[in-house]
């Protein structure tokens, strides 16, 4: 056999990977009989495939890691028929939030996961997380209010300026940005003369139609929350409800 007649490796690879037109493949197969080197090469590749399949066997489908199963379960919760359109995202987020809290909030916030309740859950969680912080309750101190406002306005995509709650005896400690399922949210902390702290949670994302104040509670911690067209807010604190309500009204008036 002359060199010109020999099968090239390119031909053999194309043949082996099934990437060759049928007639060319048939022609090549016929020529293999006279080409032991080519046959050895094909056998070597087949051995590689067999060994790779043995080295990386198929994984059993029923042993999917929990974290992956959770991703799918959350997605399915998002697909329930009532949760369509504008409410779909909110509903999934609320279910997720309640799921993460492990039933802790379920007592007060279920059933009827709604966008507004989702805000309340997030606000309560943020409050519980940061209110007890001694050294770092906020990310930016009120003394740097100008810088804080610029930063938070930029991150949240709207003018962000904490309301003045001095009339209720609360002064601003400072603020931070907290994550939420729909993007960054603003979080402000206030303190009164006795060291009592309240927090204000602001999500730059609202819903038309519902403007009434609503109430949520987790243990002694209470929240009054409301949705505007492009803003969702919640004030949270361990203070009497009527005081909290006065603060909410004051914040609402200033945040319009």
């Amino acid at each position, binding site marked *: 056999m002359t060199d010109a007649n020999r099968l090239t490796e390119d031909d053999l690879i*194309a043949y082996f990977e099934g990437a060759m037109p049928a007639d060319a493949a048939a022609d090549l197969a016929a020529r293999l009989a006279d080409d032991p080197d080519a046959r050895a090469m094909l056998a070597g590749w087949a051995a590689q*495939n067999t060994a790779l399949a043995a080295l990386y066997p198929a994984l059993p489908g029923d042993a999917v890691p929990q974290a992956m199963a959770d991703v799918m379960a959350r*997605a399915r919760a998002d697909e329930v028929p009532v949760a369509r359109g504008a409410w779909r995202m909110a509903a999934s987020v609320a279910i997720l939030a309640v799921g993460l809290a492990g039933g802790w909030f379920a007592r007060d916030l279920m059933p009827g996961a709604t966008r507004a309740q989702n805000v309340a859950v997030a606000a309560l969680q943020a409050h519980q997380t940061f209110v007890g912080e001694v050294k770092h309750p906020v990310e930016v101190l009120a003394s740097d209010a100008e810088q804080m406002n610029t930063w938070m306005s930029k991150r949240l995509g709207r003018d962000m300026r904490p309301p003045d709650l001095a009339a209720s005896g609360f002064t601003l400690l400072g603020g931070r940005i907290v994550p939420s399922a729909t993007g960054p949210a603003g979080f402000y902390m206030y303190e009164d003369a006795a060291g009592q702290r309240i927090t204000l949670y602001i999500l730059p994302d609202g819903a038309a139609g519902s403007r009434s104040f609503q109430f949520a509670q987790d243990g002694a911690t209470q929240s009054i929350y409301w949705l505007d067209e492009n803003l969702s807010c919640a004030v949270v604190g361990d203070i009497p409800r009527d005081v909290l309500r006065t603060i909410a009204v004051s914040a609402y008036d200033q945040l319009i």
Partner: protein
Amino acid sequence: MGVLDEIEAAIPALRRYAHALVRDGQRADDLVQDCLERAVAKRHAWRGDGPVQAWLFRILINRHRDLIRAAPRPGHLVAVEDLPHEPATIGGQEAHLDLRDLHDAMGRLPPDQREALLMVVLGGRSFAQAAAILEIPKGTLMSRIARARATLRVLTGRSADPRSPGKAAGQPRNVET
């Protein structure tokens, strides 16, 4: 079958491929997890052009390429000639490869060759499907597979290519399918 069902059904295949590609169980599962989260989040934007599994593999591959770019790992680009040559432990049987040798050899392949070879070997895809998932021309896929196979052959202690040792790195011509 909805998109979510199809995504869920693809998890074992994604994990198998990721485990072979990444060679570290935890990092492989992290990669799949990441892929699933992206797929689930984007499923309403996905236009349904082609099989769900191919779309998932594209997400996985792109994520893996991002990770490699972000943190290149040493050892992928060692020239074959510089490697210590250890013969396969099983002699004589041409059709038998030592799996540990093979595993080590896979780890020496450049990532683009490894992802290409595994794409055609695991999962029974056609050559055209594999090229589409990897988003490379068929000629490029052919070339990567040829180089991967030649390198594996050398690293697993096979005698060199019986006809032309240098040929394996050459550029195969484009083929029709």
